[in-house]
């Protein structure tokens, strides 16, 4: 019995290659996308769960409000870790981390192995007992116990030494500080929030501060019994989860002892966050704000797979009349209903199974490109982990159940006497047509919404990217020389003919963060978060930043040791030019006001909305990023190689690295561009699947109306008449979909755009364009079918009784 059923199901699929192709192809595309998204979402959700103590590790953070903004800080004082371990019984251990990120760190083996590194951290020795990073070589317990020891990853060992057995070898930080390799870690899994490649002991803090930041820190900083905010991200390993409440209480207790006011204590809310949630909290300030990637992608996956499944259901039910006779005969010969249900389920199992296989193949083939687009790396072992295989199995069962049930129940319900007389559709026919049109409308509504969303997102990104920066970003190179050769290097390149001018700033625009100061305006009592940048007086001229007003207008450059603010800072602090302004500058910044500049963009935040900025003018002893404006010639290469020569001469301890300002700006949007691109791909796919469904339905409907069309042709209808007759029937649900989707899409996109200060307006033509393109696609899809019918000889259709 089973064998016959199987044979019959396969034969049936084979005989209807066209419909089977549409079903399997559409489903496979949908399943491939769902699988990729499943892997992505699964990967996101699995973050940091590989640690054996994952459930017990918590990070301490503090929340406070400033300028009506919620600010979350994770920097804690050194004593915060040990104090809690001593005083609270549920705290088993702690790890303090100090991430050396904002400064440029260069690691060196020898002159030819010299690289900038950003994943460098100082940590307590407990780093390797609290977290579970497997060692390739070395002893986790003692790896960080010696001062000047360093644990590096396998990848880094290969990068510097070309091999992995390098314990005992030395690496130099910024050419000066030697560290001995005491352990080699296996490569960090892709789903780890802590992705440091170099782990150094926390005792090196003082030395690193001195070397990298040129800051002298009192050695007592590490040991004093001070509880409060500071430099160290602190993790606790808890054995008793009550400690989650006790730690903040303990901090308040400490503070009361220190006679800190109650209002101060209450304004700082300390809190412990589970390590497992960290990945979702600490994501950088993503431009596509409110687009939670996980929800968004899950939603898209759901829509795409539902569309593909609906195609299957609607095509199968649409073709029910063809199967009806078979069902009638089988019933007349004594088949039970449940046997027929079994038969139809078997068919969906085969179709879904084939589609799954094909989808899996698509997914495997495209996963590399897909995840590259997303900018994430996923270890291949993750694909076979339980987090993926179990949901995938569930998806398979869901698909079979969802797609198999309706046709099975509908078809097996036919009454044999009715269907054998060919009276399947009379009377009840209209309901089925309604059902199919509903599905078409649903699919196209979703497609149109996605399409509108894709257009709006793309436009908004374009709007942000193409907005005037407030300075000339072309032909400016940012270079980071070493401190020792800085002035010589600068002086020597200024003599080059390719160089128009140079300037210094404490950071690289769009690459580094600025420091911030919180200040209260004495004029309007506003609390303002002012970003601070140290620059020399050439900065404005070299970048082409426009002055709104320049005080003491003796030259076009501000005076040394003055302070320049941007318009937004002036606005928020309540400045008006004229009286009292200078006093205010003295009061707030402790310097004279050198001038006010027009707003210009300097980091991601300022791209999103106008941000207050103060620039300290410091002409001596300023060390940081060198901005070089090049002469506008097509031969940039020659200029750059001349600069590179001089760099090697004056700064031998550093690799020559440079960043073009305009490129740095563009990389700000890399993640968003990728998201937008992916969004576009998914939208295209959703539309493709909708069209595939429409194609199937059109094929069926035209076949069903062949007789009517034959009659009409005999009565004198032309090919054009028939085409328009058939096409309008299918356009109606698409038009309805446009009517449904447009307002919803408009509302959703308005909500999203509200988050942007600089934003586009959703214009009517977007809806028109989306609607029109979908109509054109739908028309093309349908006309392939209707043309065939319209051209067919009516006699054959009419004869077919």
């Amino acid at each position, binding site marked *: 019995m089973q064998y016959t059923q199987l044979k019959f199901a396969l034969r049936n699929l084979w005989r209807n290659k066209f419909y089977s192709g549409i079903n399997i192809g559409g489903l496979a595309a949908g399943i491939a996308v769902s699988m990729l998204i499943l892997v992505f979402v699964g990967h996101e959700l699995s973050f940091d769960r590989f640690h054996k103590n994952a459930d017990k590790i918590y990070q301490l953070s503090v929340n406070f409000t400033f300028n009506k903004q919620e600010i979350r800080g994770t920097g804690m004082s050194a004593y915060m870790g040990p104090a809690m371990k001593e005083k609270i019984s549920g705290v088993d251990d702690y790890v303090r981390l100090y991430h050396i990120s904002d400064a440029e760190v260069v690691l060196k083996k020898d002159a030819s192995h010299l690289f900038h590194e950003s994943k460098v951290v100082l940590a307590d020795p407990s780093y390797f007992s609290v977290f579970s990073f497997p060692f390739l070589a070395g002893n986790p317990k003692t790896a960080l116990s010696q001062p000047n020891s360093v644990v590096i990853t396998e990848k880094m060992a290969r990068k510097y030494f070309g091999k992995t057995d390098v314990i005992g070898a030395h690496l130099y930080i910024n050419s000066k500080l030697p560290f001995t390799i005491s352990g080699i870690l296996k490569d960090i899994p892709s789903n780890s929030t802590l992705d440091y490649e170099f782990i150094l002991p926390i005792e090196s803090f003082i030395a690193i501060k001195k070397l990298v930041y040129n800051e002298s820190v009192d050695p007592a900083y590490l040991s004093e019994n001070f509880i409060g905010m500071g430099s160290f991200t602190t993790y606790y390993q808890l054995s008793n989860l009550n400690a989650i409440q006790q730690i903040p209480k303990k901090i308040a207790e400490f503070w009361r002892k220190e006679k800190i006011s109650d209002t101060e204590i209450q304004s700082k809310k300390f809190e412990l966050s589970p390590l497992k949630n960290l990945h979702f909290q600490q994501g950088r300030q993503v431009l596509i704000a409110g687009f939670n990637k996980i929800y968004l992608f899950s939603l898209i996956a759901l829509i795409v797979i539902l569309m593909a499944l609906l195609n299957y259901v609607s095509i199968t039910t649409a073709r029910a009349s063809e199967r009806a006779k078979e069902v009638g005969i089988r019933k007349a010969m004594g088949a039970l209903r449940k046997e027929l249900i079994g038969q139809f389920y078997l068919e969906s199992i085969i179709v879904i199974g084939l589609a799954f296989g094909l989808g899996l193949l698509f997914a495997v083939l495209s996963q590399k490109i897909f995840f590259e687009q997303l900018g994430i790396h996923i270890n291949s072992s993750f694909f076979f982990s339980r987090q993926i295989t179990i949901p995938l199995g569930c998806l398979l069962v869901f698909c079979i159940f969802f797609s198999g049930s309706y046709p099975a129940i509908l078809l097996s319900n036919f009454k044999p006497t009715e269907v054998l007389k060919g009276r399947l559709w009379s009377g009840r026919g209209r309901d089925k047509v309604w059902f199919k049109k509903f599905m078409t409308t649903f699919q196209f509504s979703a497609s149109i919404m996605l399409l509108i969303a894709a257009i709006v997102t793309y436009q908004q990104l374009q709007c942000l990217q193409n907005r005037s920066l407030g300075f000339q970003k072309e032909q400016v190179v940012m270079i980071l020389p070493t401190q020792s050769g800085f002035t010589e290097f600068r002086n020597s390149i200024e003599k080059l003919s390719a160089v128009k001018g140079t300037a210094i700033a404490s950071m690289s625009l769009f690459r580094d963060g600025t420091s911030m100061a919180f200040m209260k305006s004495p004029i309007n009592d506003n609390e303002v978060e002012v970003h601070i940048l140290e620059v020399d007086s050439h900065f404005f001229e070299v970048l082409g930043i426009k002055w709104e007003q320049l005080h003491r207008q003796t030259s076009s450059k501000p005076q040394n040791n003055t302070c320049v603010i941007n318009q937004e800072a002036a606005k928020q602090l309540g400045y008006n030019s004229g009286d009292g302004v200078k006093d205010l500058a003295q009061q707030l910044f402790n310097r004279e006001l050198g001038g006010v500049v027009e707003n210009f963009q300097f980091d991601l935040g300022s791209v999103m909305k106008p941000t207050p900025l103060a620039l300290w003018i410091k002409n001596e002893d300023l060390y940081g990023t060198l901005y070089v404006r090049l002469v506008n010639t097509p031969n940039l290469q020659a200029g750059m190689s001349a600069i590179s020569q001089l760099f090697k001469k004056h700064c031998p301890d550093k690799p020559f690295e440079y960043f073009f300002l305009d490129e740095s700006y563009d990389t700000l949007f890399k993640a968003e561009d990728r998201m937008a691109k992916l969004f576009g791909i998914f939208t295209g796919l959703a539309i493709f699947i909708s069209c595939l469904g429409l194609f199937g339905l059109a094929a069926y409907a035209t076949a069903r109306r062949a007789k009517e069309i034959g009659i009409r042709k*005999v*009565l*004198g209808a032309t090919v054009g008449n028939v085409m328009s007759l058939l096409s309008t029937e299918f356009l109606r649900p698409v038009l309805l979909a446009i009517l449904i989707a447009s307002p919803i899409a408009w509302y959703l996109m308005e909500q999203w755009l509200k988050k942007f200060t600089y934003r586009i307006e959703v214009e009517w033509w977007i809806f028109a364009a989306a609607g029109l393109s979908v109509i054109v696609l739908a028309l093309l899809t349908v006309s392939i079918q209707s043309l065939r019918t319209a051209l067919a000889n009516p006699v054959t259709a009419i004869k077919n009784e």
Partner: protein
Amino acid sequence: MLQLKNIAKYHNSGIQKNWVLKDISANIFEGEFVSIMGPSGAGKSTLLNIIGMLEEPSGGEYYFLDEPVHKLSEKKRTELYKHYIGFVFQQYHLIDELTVYENLETPLLYKKMSGSERKSRVADILDRFNMVAKKDLFPNQLSGGQQQLVGIARALIGQPKLILADEPTGNLQSAQADEIMQIFKKLNEEEGVSIIQVTHSEKNAAYAQRIIHLLDGHVEREEKITK
């Protein structure tokens, strides 16, 4: 009215040619009422379809109102039959989704007739066939004879010169069949419409002035009916 010269029709089935019609020559004059008879598979319907320009002959010449149909383009042919030919089918072939009124209107739509003229024509024909009361019914709400009346009305509404009827009474009871044949006869005699019908029934065939007997794709004999 029309002239068939050595009309042939075959289907290719593999290497073999399947002859449906062979060397058919006939003249049909304006105002004539002709029946085509013959056993099943003799090629009656095929011949009718060729005359109605729904099928193309494999060979031979066909002149309709002195136009060489076998040389005309599809578009011209469509124009020709749209204006001069009306079809009546055994299975009526009404459009199930349309009412009687709309069914009657359909051929006029394809003639690009104005709305008011369509209205008056449909009203006229409904009146003539005594179907005014049934104009809003759907085909499946009518009896077979009534459906065929609508079918004939639809064929006539374009005021054709020639009506081609493929077993128009084949699905009807004899009383209804008689009624239909009377209508044909009246049309032929009073309005001068030429009629060619395919039929199995001797009795119905005798309504015509001439009977062409087909056998295995060729004309077996012709028979003049004298009254």
